[in-house]
């Protein structure tokens, strides 16, 4: 037992000395910033409905008329199916509004809390139990 724990502590120490900036499942706080809520409107370019977490990619028109591709993390295929969200809900070309939290690395990534279709149909999604969806809205100006 002591060996086991010492080893784990040592590894945790090593890990903590790296900057952690890649994706994670069940680790919202590793990737996404609860203080950076974000809302984007765009057109679906790709939906990866995969375990353990799904990804929705969509093109957002920027102010200077260019297109920026954003990727948002969603829950498992099972949890999305429970909410009525399947491949046929979000075909390529669908107009969507995605609300969520931006990635800490500042790139065009985020964690989705809800997705709304053009017809007003809305799905509350999200995969990480430690995501702040149910917490009071962050007090960002």
């Amino acid at each position: 037992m002591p060996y086991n724990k010492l080893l784990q502590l040592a590894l945790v120490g090593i890990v903590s000395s790296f900057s952690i900036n890649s994706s994670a499942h069940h680790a919202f706080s590793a990737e996404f910033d609860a203080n950076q809520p974000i809302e984007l409107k765009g057109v679906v370019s790709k939906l990866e409905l995969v375990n353990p977490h799904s990804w929705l990619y969509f093109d957002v028109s920027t102010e200077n008329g260019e297109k920026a591709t954003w990727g948002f993390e969603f829950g498992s295929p099972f949890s999305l199916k429970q909410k009525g969200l399947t491949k046929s809900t979000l075909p390529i070309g669908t107009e969507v509004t995605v609300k969520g939290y931006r990635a800490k690395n500042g790139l065009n990534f985020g964690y989705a809390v809800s997705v709304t279709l053009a017809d007003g149909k809305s799905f509350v999604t999200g995969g990480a139990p430690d995501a702040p969806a149910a917490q009071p809205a962050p007090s960002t100006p």
Partner: protein
Amino acid sequence: MNLHDLFQAMYESCLGTALAESLYVYPLVEGIHLLSLAFSFGLIVLVDFRLLGIALPSLPVGEMLKQLRPWMIGGFTATFVTGILLMFALGPKLLATFIFPLKLLVILLAALNAIWFEWKFGRDQDYLTGRKDPVVSAKIAGAISLASWSTVVVLGRLIPYFDGSF
């Protein structure tokens, strides 16, 4: 074909796609991968503890191995098979950081250590029937086993924190 191509091919195979998109099978496979540790990792830690004199010191090592072997083999089979399935389901993103390759490397080290132990002590009558205290080399093998398999479990749990999805 390099390692990345292999993982890409596994991910794009029928099995990989089916697992990645599955509703129930992937969560089940992940659950079995975790809980089968009770037989694979848990029992090998017990054997390591025995070699180091921490647990069940009056039971001859050979006797313990004989009695636990079918359960350990069953446990390692379950952990290993579900691990391969998870590789199919997750694909090249496992190679995005050093964590998973390092895990494979440490598994190799742990397996070589186990093979060496079997080769050296597998037919030793003192271990099979006697109550002889493990010799120093057996204790070292136990310590290497304990350290390496623990590292494997820790690295496994770290994968989602380093899977480099973006």
